[in-house]
C-alpha cells in the first residue's frame, strides 16, 4: 500500500497472522483497517484515553502508540480473543454489574482487567483501580467497572429474565450488552464502505477570521490522493443548520468568514491513507484574522461588533421568570445572601469522536453515524442539501457517548454533501482534537444571585441573573436561557422570584446541550448560597433545605401546581448519612491539620422533556404471522439504556415476557420518530408511548379473543393463547391477514407531554413531569496544596417508578462523575485544551464510592409513575462538593472548576481578616 510496506508475522488472539504494512503504522490502525478487528477502539491517538488497550505478550499497551514494528513476532490479545461461543467470565461480570454503558471504553477496560486477572484472579478494589487507571470512561463513573472486575467468577447463576408482567422494576442486564463486551458493536468509525472516499475537514485556526480560497482546482490536480474539494459554494440547499429551526444559523461550511476556532470551511476528499498522512498546509486558503470577542460581558457592549446581524449586542435571547415581588421581599428579609459564580466551557469528552459513513442507495441518501437524534439529523441535513427529508435515511450506529453534543449535526451534512456530489460512498472520523474544537460545549455562566429568608429560615425571595456564553452559533442557547430561569430557584418554595438568563454570542466554541442545559451551572450558585443562608439563619444546611422543599400542591416559580414532588423524601433519606458524616468530619479534623474533612449537600429538580414545546415520541409494536414480537424502538441508546428500559415498560403494558421482544432500530427508515435522546425524556416520553402501544396491542388481542383485561396472554409456536380462569382461546397468527407494516397484529402510539406555553413572566406549565434528587458529598481538602479529594457520595434520587435499578444506578454514578469533573477539573480553553491530557476528566481514582438511594414518589403523568433521571444526577454534585470544600476549609469558590490553585487562593481569602 505505502512506499515501504513490510510483512510482519504476529500472533493475534493465538492465531499466527501476517500483516503487510508500514513498520511505523499504529497497531490500532493495523488491527482495525488491515485485519478488520474493530473491537479495539480509538479515542484519542495519543495514549490519553486507553480505549485502544491491547495486550502485547500479556502486558497492556496503547495500540495507538505502538508502531507495528514493535510487535513483530510477538503475541497480541484483543477483545475479540476473550470469548468464543461463550463470553469470558470477565465479560459476564461486566454485563452483570452494568459496567458497560455506551461500550466504547469497554474493550480497553476488559483488556486491562484481563492482564490484572491473569496474575491476580481476586483483586481488591484498590488493585482493580490501579490496573484500570489508564483507561478513561465517561459514562459509568467507574464504580460498576471496579465492582465487576472484583467479582469475576467462573461460575455464577445467570440472572433470569423477568417473567411476563414483572419486567418493570427488575435489574435486567442491558439487552444490547453482549455486543458491547465482545467487541462486535459497530460505532461510527467501525463501518467503512469498501471503496469509500475519505473526508478531511479544513478548519479555521482563528477564533474569528475572513478567508479566501486560492486555486482549488489546481490543488486537486496537483495533490496526490486528492479527488475533490468542496466548499460552501457547493452547497445547494440552505447553508444553515440548528437544533431549534427558527434560530438555525450555523453553516455546514462557513462562507468567507469563520466565527470560531475549529469551524469547518472546506472538505478535502480522497484516499484515506494519503489524506490522513498528508501535510495539508499547502491547501490554498488565505486567512485574515479579525479581532475576536471571547467575553460574553464585553460582547453586550458597544466595544464588540455583532457576530450575527439581527442579534443586537450579541444577545441571542433572554429567558425570564417572575412571580410575586422579589425586590420587596428581599428588602424585608431577615437574612439575605448575595453571591456570584463563574463557570467554564465544559467538553463532553465522550470517548468516541464523531464518525460515520454515507452512500447513495437508489433514490435515498443514507447516512450512518453516531448520533442522539436521527430525525433531527435528517431534517437539518435535508435543509442543507436541499433534499426532501424523506429522501434521507439516517441509521444511527452505536454511539460512544453523547451527553448532549451529538444532538446537533456535525458530520452528517458533510458526509451527505460528499456522497451526493461524488456519487460515491464516503467516510469520516474526527480526530480527538477536531471533535473537541468543532462540537458543542456546556455554556459557561457568569451568574449573580440574592436570596432572602425570614427568621424561621423560610425563603422569602430570590433574584437571579446570568449571562451564558453561547459561542458563535445559537445551537441550544435558547433552551439554556429558558431552562435556567425556570430552575434557578432549586426545588424550593420561592414565593417571590425574578430570574433572567441571557444567551450571548462570542467567538468561543458553540455552546449547546450538555446534561442539564445550564441548570447545573445555576445550581452551583443557588445551592452554595443556600449554605451561606442556612448559616445566617443558624440552621443546619440539610434541615434548611427540608424546611423549604417543595411539596405536592405547592406552586413552582412558574405558577405550576406541582404533583409527585419527591425532594423532601430525597432529603429525608440523606439525614442519617449526613449526621454520621458530620460527626466523622469533626472527629477527623480534631487530629488532622493539613487534611481537613467536610460534608456538603445539594438538591436538584429538573423538568423532563422540552420546555413548553411539543416533543412527541411514537412507538410501533407488531406481531408477525410466524409469531415474532417486534418493537420499533427509535429512542437512541447512547449508553443510558433506552434499548432496555423502553422494552421493559412495553413488555409489562402488553403482558408478554421481556425476552420475547426483538428490537428494531433506531433507523429513520424502520422506526417512527422517538425524538432526541436529551432532556431526560426517553424513559418518560418514549416510555409512555411504549406503554400506550403495549396497552393498545393488548386491548386488540383481548378484543379478538373476547376476554377481559385480567386475561393472561402467551405467545408461542406461532399462536397467541389468551387465558382467563377456565377459559382459554387461541389466535393462530398465520390465519390472520397481514396488515400495515407486514404485521398481523400491531399497534402504534404517540405521546407528547401536556405542557403550556410560558407567558411574558415565565408563568405556565413548562413540563409535565419533574424529577428530584439530593446528594451529599464528603470531601478532604489538603489546605496546604488546595487539592480536593471526594471520599464518598450518597445520592438520593426520586425516579417516580424505578424501571431498572441496575441501569438507574449506572446513570447516577455516571452523572456524578461528570458533576465531579465540572466541580474540580474540567475547563475547556479553545485552542489550548483540545486533547485529553490538557483537558482533564475524572479518572478511575477520582471517583469515590457512591451509595444510591432510589426513591419512588409516583408521578401521575409518567409511564407507570416513572420520571426522568439522566440529567438530574449531575446537577447536585458540583454544589455538594463546593459546600463540602467550604465546610472543610472555609474556602468559598466563585469560579469553577475548583483547581488546586483556586482552592488555595480561596482558603487564603477565607483566612484573611475581613
Amino acid at each position, binding site marked *: 500500500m505505502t512506499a515501504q510496506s513490510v510483512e510482519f508475522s504476529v500472533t493475534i488472539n493465538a492465531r499466527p497472522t501476517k500483516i503487510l504494512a508500514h513498520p511505523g503504522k499504529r497497531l490500532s490502525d493495523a488491527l482495525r483497517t488491515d485485519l478488520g478487528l474493530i473491537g479495539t477502539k480509538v479515542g484519542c491517538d495519543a495514549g490519553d484515553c486507553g480505549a485502544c488497550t491491547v495486550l502485547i505478550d500479556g502486558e497492556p499497551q496503547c495500540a495507538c502508540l505502538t508502531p507495528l514494528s514493535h510487535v513483530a513476532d510477538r503475541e497480541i490479545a484483543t477483545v475479540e480473543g476473550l470469548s468464543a461461543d461463550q463470553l469470558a467470565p470477565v465479560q459476564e461480570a461486566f454485563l452483570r454489574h452494568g459496567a458497560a454503558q455506551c461500550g466504547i471504553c469497554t474493550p480497553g477496560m476488559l483488556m*486491562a482487567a484481563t492482564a490484572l486477572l491473569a496474575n491476580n484472579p481476586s483483586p481488591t478494589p484498590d488493585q482493580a483501580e490501579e490496573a484500570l487507571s*489508564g483507561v478513561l470512561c465517561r459514562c459509568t463513573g467507574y464504580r460498576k467497572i471496579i465492582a465487576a472486575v472484583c467479582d469475576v467468577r467462573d461460575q455464577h447463576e445467570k440472572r433470569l429474565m423477568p417473567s411476563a408482567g414483572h419486567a418493570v422494576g427488575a435489574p435486567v442486564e442491558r439487552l444490547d450488552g453482549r455486543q458491547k463486551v465482545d467487541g462486535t458493536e459497530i460505532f461510527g468509525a467501525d463501518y467503512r464502505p469498501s471503496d469509500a472516499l475519505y473526508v478531511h475537514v479544513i478548519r479555521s485556526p482563528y477564533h474569528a477570521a475572513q478567508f479566501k480560497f486560492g486555486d482549488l482546482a489546481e490543488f486537486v490536480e496537483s495533490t496526490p490522493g486528492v479527488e475533490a474539494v468542496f466548499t460552501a459554494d457547493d452547497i445547494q440547499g440552505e447553508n444553515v443548520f440548528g437544533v431549534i429551526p427558527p434560530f438555525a444559523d450555523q453553516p455546514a461550511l462557513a462562507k468567507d468568514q469563520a466565527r470560531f476556532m475549529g469551524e469547518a470551511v472546506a472538505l478535502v476528499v480522497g484516499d484515506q491513507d494519503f489524506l490522513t*498522512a498528508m501535510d495539508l498546509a499547502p491547501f490554498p486558503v488565505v486567512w485574515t484574522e479579525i479581532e475576536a470577542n471571547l467575553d460574553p460581558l464585553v460582547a453586550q457592549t458597544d466595544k464588540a461588533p455583532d457576530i450575527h446581524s439581527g442579534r443586537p449586542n450579541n444577545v441571542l435571547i433572554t429567558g425570564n421568570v417572575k412571580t410575586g415581588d422579589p425586590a420587596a421581599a428581599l428588602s424585608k428579609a431577615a437574612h439575605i445572601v448575595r453571591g456570584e459564580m463563574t463557570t467554564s466551557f465544559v467538553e463532553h469528552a465522550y470517548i468516541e469522536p464523531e464518525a460515520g459513513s454515507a452512500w447513495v442507495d437508489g433514490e435515498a441518501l443514507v447516512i450512518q453515524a453516531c448520533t442522539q437524534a436521527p430525525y433531527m439529523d435528517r431534517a437539518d441535513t435535508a435543509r442543507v442539501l436541499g433534499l426532501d427529508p424523506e429522501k434521507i435515511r439516517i441509521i444511527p450506529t452505536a454511539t460512544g457517548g453523547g451527553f448532549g453534543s451529538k444532538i446537533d449535526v456535525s458530520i452528517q451534512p458533510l458526509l451527505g454533501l460528499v456522497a451526493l456530489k461524488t456519487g460515491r460512498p464516503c467516510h469520516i472520523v474526527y480526530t480527538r482534537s477536531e471533535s473537541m474544537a468543532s462540537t458543542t460545549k456546556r455554556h459557561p455562566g457568569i451568574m449573580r444571585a440574592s436570596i432572602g429568608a425570614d427568621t424561621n429560615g423560610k425563603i422569602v425571595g430570590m433574584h437571579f441573573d446570568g449571562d451564558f456564553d453561547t459561542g458563535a452559533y445559537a445551537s441550544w442557547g435558547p433552551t439554556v436561557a429558558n431552562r435556567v430561569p425556570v430552575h434557578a430557584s432549586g426545588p424550593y418554595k420561592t414565593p417571590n422570584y425574578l430570574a433572567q438568563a441571557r444567551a450571548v454570542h462570542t467567538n468561543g466554541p458553540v455552546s449547546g446541550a450538555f446534561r442539564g442545559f445550564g441548570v447545573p451551572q445555576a445550581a452551583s450558585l443557588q445551592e452554595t448560597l443556600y449554605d451561606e443562608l442556612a448559616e445566617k439563619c443558624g440552621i443546619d444546611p440539610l434541615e434548611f433545605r427540608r424546611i423549604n422543599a417543595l411539596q405536592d400542591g405547592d406552586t413552582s416559580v412558574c405558577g405550576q401546581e406541582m404533583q409527585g414532588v419527591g425532594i423532601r423524601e430525597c432529603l429525608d433519606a440523606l439525614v442519617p448519612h449526613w449526621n454520621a458524616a458530620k460527626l466523622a468530619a469533626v472527629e477527623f479534623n480534631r487530629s488532622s491539620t493539613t487534611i481537613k474533612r467536610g460534608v456538603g449537600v445539594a438538591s436538584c429538580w429538573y423538568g423532563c422533556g422540552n420546555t413548553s414545546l411539543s416533543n412527541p415520541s411514537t412507538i410501533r409494536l407488531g406481531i408477525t404471522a410466524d409469531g415474532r414480537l417486534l418493537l420499533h424502538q427509535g429512542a437512541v441508546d447512547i449508553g443510558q439504556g433506552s434499548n432496555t428500559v423502553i422494552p421493559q415498560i412495553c413488555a409489562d403494558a402488553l403482558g408478554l415476557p421481556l425476552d420475547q421482544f426483538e428490537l428494531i432500530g433506531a433507523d429513520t427508515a424502520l422506526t417512527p420518530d422517538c425524538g432526541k435522546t436529551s432532556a431526560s425524556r426517553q424513559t418518560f416520553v418514549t416510555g409512555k408511548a411504549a406503554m400506550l402501544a403495549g396497552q393498545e396491542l393488548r386491548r386488540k388481542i383481548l378484543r379478538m379473543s373476547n376476554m377481559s383485561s385480567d386475561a393472561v396472554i402467551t405467545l408461542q409456536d406461532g399462536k397467541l393463547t389468551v387465558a382467563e380462569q377456565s377459559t382459554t382461546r387461541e389466535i393462530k397468527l398465520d390465519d390472520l391477514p397481514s396488515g400495515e407494516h407486514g404485521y398481523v397484529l400491531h399497534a402504534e402510539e404517540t405521546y407528547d407531554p401536556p405542557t403550556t406555553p410560558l407567558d411574558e413572566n415565565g408563568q405556565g406549565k413548562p413540563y409535565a413531569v419533574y424529577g428530584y434528587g439530593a446528594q451529599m458529598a464528603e470531601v478532604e481538602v489538603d489546605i496546604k496544596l488546595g487539592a480536593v479529594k471526594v471520599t464518598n457520595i450518597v445520592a438520593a434520587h426520586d425516579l417516580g417508578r424505578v424501571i431498572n435499578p441496575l441501569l438507574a444506578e449506572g446513570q447516577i454514578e455516571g452523572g456524578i462523575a461528570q458533576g465531579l469533573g465540572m466541580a474540580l477539573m474540567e475547563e475547556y480553553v479553545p485552542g489550548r485544551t483540545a486533547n485529553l491530557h490538557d483537558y482533564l476528566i475524572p479518572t478511575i481514582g477520582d471517583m469515590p464510592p457512591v451509595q444510591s438511594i432510589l426513591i419512588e414518589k409516583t408521578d401521575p403523568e409518567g409511564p407507570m409513575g416513572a420520571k426522568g433521571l439522566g440529567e438530574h444526577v449531575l446537577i447536585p454534585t458540583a454544589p455538594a462538593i463546593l459546600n463540602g470544600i467550604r465546610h472543610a476549609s472555609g474556602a468559598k469558590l466563585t469560579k469553577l472548576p475548583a483547581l488546586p490553585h483556586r482552592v488555595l487562593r480561596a482558603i487564603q481569602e477565607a483566612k484573611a481578616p475581613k
Partner: protein
Amino acid sequence: MKDSGLAHYFRPTDLGLALDWLSDNEARVAAGCTDLLAATTAPQLSGPVLDVTAIQNLRGISKDDRYWRFGATTTWTDVIRADLPPAFDSLKLAAREVGSQQIQNAGTLAGNLCNASPAADGVPCWLTLDAQIELKSKHTTRVLPLSSFLNGPRQTELATDEIVSAILVPQTSAGGRSSFLKFGARKYLIISIAMVAARITENRGVVSEIAISVGSCGAVATRLTELEAALNGQPLLGIETRITDVMIENAIDPIDDLRSDAVSRKIAASELVRRCIASLGQDPVASA
C-alpha cells in the same frame, strides 16, 4: 498509485549499523513512541525514522564499580521491576506515575529525556542521582551531566547524528534513600503541577549528603543547591523544619498555565519539598 512520500523506517539490531545510518540520514530517533505517535494525527510515524528498540544491549540495567548503567531503551516497567537500592526509590515512584501502565510498558528512559518536557517525570529523580547521559555517534562517545544535556522545553544537546545510549548514575551518588512526590489535579494520568524528588544519605542521624530537585516549575527541572547546602550536616529528625520557602522559591521559575498559576506552584513546590524530605527523615535507619 502516486508516490506517498513516506520515507524510510530503519530498525536495526546492531548499534554500529544504527549509528552508521544516522550519520548518513537525517532522521528522527524513535524508541517507545509514546511521545512521537502522540504528537501526530497521522496513522503512522512519518519518516525518516531510526527505531532503536531492536538494538541489542540498549535495554536493561547493569552496574560496575563506578556506575549504574540504565540502557536507553529500558522501559519504566523495567525500572519498576528491577532490584535496585533505595536511592532509586524515587525513580521507581516516578516510573509508576509516568502516564499509565500502558505507557510505562512502552515508554523508555531515554525517550523521556530526549522529549525534554519541563514536566518529564524522570528528570527530578535523575538530577538527585547526579545522572550522566551517554551519547553515541558513529565516531564519538561523550558523556554529559543531565543538567547540561537539557537546554529547555523540547531542547537538548543531542546532535543530529547522535543517540542517547545510556543513563549513568555514579555509584557515589547511589547511596541513601529517596522519594518522589507528584502533584496534579487528578489521581491518574497526570501532567504535574509540580513534582519533587529527594535523596538523603545519613550518618548517625545526621545528613551527610542531600539532593533535592523540583520539576514542572521552570523550563527544566532543577536542583535546589542552596537548600541542600543549608540542610547538609543537620540532624535528620525534623529536618523539614529547617526548610525556608525562600530557598526553594529562589531556585525555581514557574509559569502561569492551564494547570496552575506561578504563585501557587511556588507554594506547592515548597510544601512538596517539605513532605518529601519529611518522609525521608521520619524513620531514620542506621546507615550501612
